[in-house]
């Protein structure tokens, strides 16, 4: 068993043939993931959201990709599959709401900014929920109170918040405050079409087409054009199908010399030669090279993918 791996995932990682793999995958997705996804989406979006099935499908797709990476040994272990599913679902729902209700998202950001930058107010967490109120109430739990729409004026956010808290005399759930202002601010997101917030999700086949339409040379040239840190985060972790580094393929296919690769990832050639057999590097090692955190390395790589996707889609 791999260190730090949720025991629920063991049967998938240990699967040695397609049938065993498919059985384990189906069990994980239907018996463990699906109930968590449905519950999370119900709490976040309600049961009547017409796009619920699409969001659930999107989460499932991401989980399948992640589990495939895990099975091939190219992803770090998941300590709690249930928590992982909950987090992916939370982000998917959050992204959906931000796209579906863009004006409300802007309003929420502004209120949140004021609550954390005006010394009269404070914003804090009680478990996973955001709570807000006067600064002197910090860390106290919310107490639901009837709210008067007449107190909420988006154009005078600070004074409105002060008025609301004076009337309630107790902390409130942040989402209740946002809902109050949204209801009284003519926020009209109802018919807003979803926008292209994620190129990859909306056009999943775009990259597959590259195999037939684009050459390795073209992809490589686009990678060369990436900003240095994004390029480094991408290349030092780049893996071929078997999980080994894809960098040796760059040299064996004649796309780049080891010296050119060293230059592109900002490592002296001799040093690159010394770590050649350790490639691909894990995110923590890349992070220490870049003076970054592990999450920053992950985000730099995502930025690199976005840029490549955008540039390739323009061709």
């Amino acid at each position, binding site marked *: 068993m791999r260190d730090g791996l949720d025991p629920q995932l063991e049967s998938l990682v240990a699967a040695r043939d397609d049938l065993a793999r498919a059985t384990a995958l189906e069990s994980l997705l239907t018996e463990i993931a699906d109930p968590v996804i449905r519950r999370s989406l119900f709490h976040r979006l309600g049961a009547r959201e017409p796009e619920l099935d699409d969001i659930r499908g999107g989460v499932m797709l991401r989980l399948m990709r992640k589990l495939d990476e895990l099975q091939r040994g190219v992803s770090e272990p998941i300590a709690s599959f249930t928590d992982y599913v909950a987090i992916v679902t939370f982000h998917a729902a959050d992204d959906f709401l931000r796209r579906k209700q863009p004006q409300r998202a802007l309003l929420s950001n502004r209120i949140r900014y004021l609550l954390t*930058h005006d010394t009269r107010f404070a914003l804090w967490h009680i478990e996973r929920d955001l709570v807000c109120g006067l600064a002197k109430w910090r860390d106290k739990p919310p107490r639901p109170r009837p709210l008067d729409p007449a107190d909420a004026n988006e154009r005078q956010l600070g004074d409105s918040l002060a008025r609301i808290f004076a009337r309630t005399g107790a902390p409130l759930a942040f989402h209740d405050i946002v809902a109050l202002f949204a209801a009284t601010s003519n926020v009209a997101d109802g018919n807003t079409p979803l926008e292209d917030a994620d190129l990859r999700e909306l056009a999943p086949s775009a990259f597959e087409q590259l*195999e037939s339409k684009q050459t390795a040379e073209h992809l490589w040239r686009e990678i060369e054009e990436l900003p240095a840190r994004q390029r480094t985060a991408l290349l030092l972790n780049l893996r071929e199908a078997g999980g080994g580094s894809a960098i040796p393929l760059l040299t064996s296919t004649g796309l780049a010399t080891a010296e050119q690769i060293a230059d592109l990832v900002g490592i002296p050639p001799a040093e690159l030669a010394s770590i050649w057999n350790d490639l691909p590097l894990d995110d923590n090692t890349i992070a220490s090279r870049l003076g970054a955190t592990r999450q920053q390395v992950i985000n730099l790589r995502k930025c690199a993918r976005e840029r490549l996707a955008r540039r390739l889609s323009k061709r």
Partner: protein
Amino acid sequence: MSIDEKERQALIQALVAELSASEPLHLDYEMIEAYVDGRSDAIDREIVSSHAAMCAMCGRELRDLETFAAQHRPRRNWLPFAAAAIAAGLIIAIIPLLRPSATVLSLHDGGREISLTTDGQLAGINGLTSDDARRITNALRAGSLTVPPAATQLEKSGEALRSTYSSTSSFEPLAPIGCIIVSDRPTFEWTSVPGARYRVEVFSDHFRPVVSSGELGTTHWTVPQPLARGATYVWQVTAIGSKGETTSPAPPVPEARFAVLDERNAKAIARLEQSQPRSHLALGVAYAEAGVTAEAERELQELAGENQGSADARRLLQSLRSH
């Protein structure tokens, strides 16, 4: 399939898998707030500006919060404000005595803060030649860039060619077209014709043959020997198939033209790329004024991305696009 082709396919598969992998990045509120408040480190700034330039949703939220934050100064206790006001008053009183010049604009550039003072001094960027510094200062002061007429002329010829091809043909040259390129060993690219082999021919501006590729099985070819710097070239690609040969572009379609950056500008840019690899401002201005507009656009987009609320960065980009 040859071993080389297998490895090539494996590489493409690795890249495609990489591009298709994992969840998308979206900026959470904390990242946006830290960026707006100037609390992000250089790496997070790069991540935020890079993503916001690609994602409509996050870009809109970032711009909105920047505007909101600028309009809503945080309310603080009066004491620190009063202390700050007194300190500011003292500084204002002392400034004329010390005679330092005031900052007229400042920009984030590759994680640094670059500023221009009223007396034309650039601060925050070291190692520039006097020419480079003068060019940047002039561009910032004027809010505009000077692109050589030759580059503009080339771009027009490229646009004329592309507009013709989009409506009449599927076999067409892709690059380089209508631009000045930095490398003196360009790679030519064109669309494919099923089952065809290809031949590329490069001519001087006066249509004298310069170099030919011989027959190729690929849709790209890199010139083996350097082309002359500062010269303009015309090129054609011929598809050789079982039914004969097709050459593109061919009259009456406009020629595919490009120029190789001249020696002086190529050296200046190479030096700048070495000394200022992270300065989008310095590189953007240098590329633009050398006529290498595609690279200038890329750098100035980066600069604008790092300075979302700055009219100065935006103005430079607009100036490049409107030349």
